[in-house]
């Protein structure tokens, strides 16, 4: 969205205007993302209300430890991302690259844990379909459909984020950014924080709210 050079694109009058436009543009994009995820969240809330018992039961079969660890990992990656943007702002290019790589590593950790978790669901016959078993929760299948759809969509965003941050790291390594121009890093950062926020809500919805209620 933002031009990958220092120059001001011809439709703009100042770099100020260009930066503000890109910044607001990304926020508008995040608003659409909120509603995109919102559709599934809504479905989850509706069904949790309608099939309360089943959802509570099924939700207790998720692995709280993995969920919590992953939340911590993502929250930390948000910190490293923020620090990366800070490094860009003050022109510490080495730090920028380091923090970007750290963020990517954390994201990969997240995906790894998610993978293990998925594998365990598979072993426990919790993949919806003919082999699905969940005693006592007739709509447990529905819960797991949501579980996989929501975490799957989120994981897709994490993967996109990893790609985006890798490009940023590469560009940073080539010294493309300086304190006067780091919009792409900043915007990737916004996107990454957004992915974190989605998880901040997925975590209680999937793992927590039904533990004791």
């Amino acid at each position: 969205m933002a031009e990958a050079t220092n120059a001001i694109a011809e439709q703009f009058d100042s770099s100020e205007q260009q930066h503000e436009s890109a910044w607001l543009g990304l926020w508008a994009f995040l608003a659409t993302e909120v509603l995109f995820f919102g559709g599934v969240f809504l479905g989850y809330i509706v069904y949790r209300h309608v099939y309360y018992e089943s959802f509570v039961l099924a939700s207790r079969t998720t692995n709280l430890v993995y969920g919590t660890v992953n939340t911590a990992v993502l929250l930390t990656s948000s910190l490293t991302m923020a620090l990366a943007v800070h490094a860009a702002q003050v022109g510490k290019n080495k730090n920028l690259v380091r923090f970007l790589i750290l963020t990517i590593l954390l994201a990969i950790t997240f995906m790894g844990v998610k993978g293990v978790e998925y594998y365990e669901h598979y072993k426990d016959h919790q993949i919806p379909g003919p082999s699905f078993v969940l005693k006592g929760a007739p709509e447990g299948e529905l819960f797991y459909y949501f579980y996989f759809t929501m975490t799957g969509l989120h994981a897709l965003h994490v993967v996109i984020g990893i790609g985006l941050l890798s490009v940023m790291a590469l560009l940073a390594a080539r010294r493309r950014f300086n304190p006067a121009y780091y919009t792409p890093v900043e915007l990737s950062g916004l996107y990454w924080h957004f992915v974190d926020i989605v998880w901040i809500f997925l975590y209680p919805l999937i793992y927590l709210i039904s533990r004791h209620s």
Partner: protein
Amino acid sequence: MNIIEETHPPPPAKLEPDYLEAGHTVRSWLLTTDHKRIGLLYLFSIIFFFFIAAVAAGIMRLELLTPKGDLVLSETYSKLFTLHGVIMVWFFLIPSIPTVLGNFLIPMMIGARDVAFPKLNLLSWYLFMAGGMFALYAIIAGGVDTGWTFYTPYSSRYSNSHVIEMATGIFLSGFGSILTGLNFIITVHKMRAPGMTWFRLPLFIWSHYATSLILVLATPVLAITLLLMALERIWGIGIFDPRIGGDPVLFQHLFWFYSHPAVYIMVLPSMAVISELIPCFSRKQIFGYKFIAFASLAIAFLGFLVWGHHMFVAGPSVYAGLVFSLLSFLVAIPSAIKVFNWTATLHRGSISFETPMLYALGFIGLFSLGGLTGLFLAALGADVHLTDTYFIIAHFHYIMVGGTVLGFMGGMHFWWPKITGRMYPEKMGQLAALVTFIGFNLTFFPQFILGYLGMPRRYHAYAPEYQVYNVLSTAGASILAVGYILPVIYFIWSLHKGKKAPANPWNATGLEWQTPSPPPVHNFYETPLVVKGPYDYSPEEEERKLEERHG
């Protein structure tokens, strides 16, 4: 009409070529980031899609001449109305005014060189076309038979047609829509020329801003809905599957959360056009500028709260029905404000009847009738009888064809000189407007009666007592077809044979008229400085000039 001959000060020496001259290669069109060229790319695309869908409508109307299903198979008919609905809605009407006129005019009207993100703008067009190709593929491969609403579980489990391809097409073009909306919002916020304050913006901009809000906030919900539906079809992810407890009504909630606001995506830009035409052709400051501006935003906002009115008999709770009904009635108020203000603008104006004005007046009439019949449907007790009958068909064609398509045609005539640098033949234009108006009413008015009499929609064969009205409707459609084809012919004709257009043939006040026709690549030779509001017209002045001319 004499205005056209009026002499103008010669345009400043050409500093850069006009946007049409800037390049003649295919490449210069396909890789352009010029909002004006992208507008034209969209124009050709949507006209193409419109004719596909219109042919489908033509065949449908022929089938409905007789009560028996004798022209096409029921299966084919289902595919025809799905094709017609999907293409008309997502590949013609939603993109029509925003992406053609909006793209072309928004930067010019606010005095900018381009939109905020020109490359994104081009990407939107490619997404739109990619979506269109998927849709075409779905049609050629055998069609889709779900109706444009894709209700589950029919679409997700039972239909044996190319639902996924079609959904992919809509999904992609939806992303195009989102990016266009995003682009417009940022453009309006950040790219205004010096002195162009919010209340000096033409109402065209206000309406498009409201439209963009809907595009950005509603379209993602359609994306996720279609995605979930497709996932259910591919992998049996049964979120709407009643067999494992899924609720098909939830699909409808999600679908209409997008699709009701979407109907305002279709009509707001048309209102945008009308708000430009009426003041120009009555040479009068628009009445109630701020009210119309805020009415646009109010429609956009309230439009998000009423989706449940499509589901009154679908089985949601009775109380939800009551709430949605009330909100649906309320959304009529801002529309009413607009209609009243347009009418009031005519008062003490100096009115002339060029083609764009005829279309604008047609719009007001047909939109009002379409909107008022919307109230029938918002009234719960009446909706139970009228829903899913031809009354609905008539209601929305009155607004979408009678309203938006007429608005689009009006806008095309109005800005044709600016876009192409040529005038269209005025008499022909007036004739086409008249034919369209007559044909339209003959096509769709009988459908109100059919609906009240109970004829269900999406029927290719019907009870014999409905025949007379259907014959009328088909007859009307043939006249309407003439009304559509005429402009296409004379527009093409005018490209070579039309009179050269001056910079400001209508003596209009918008910034887009203060630069040559067709405009230079960067719209203005120098960034304009705005010192007054839009619509700085004076009817008295106009009359005085006229008198002088006639001595």
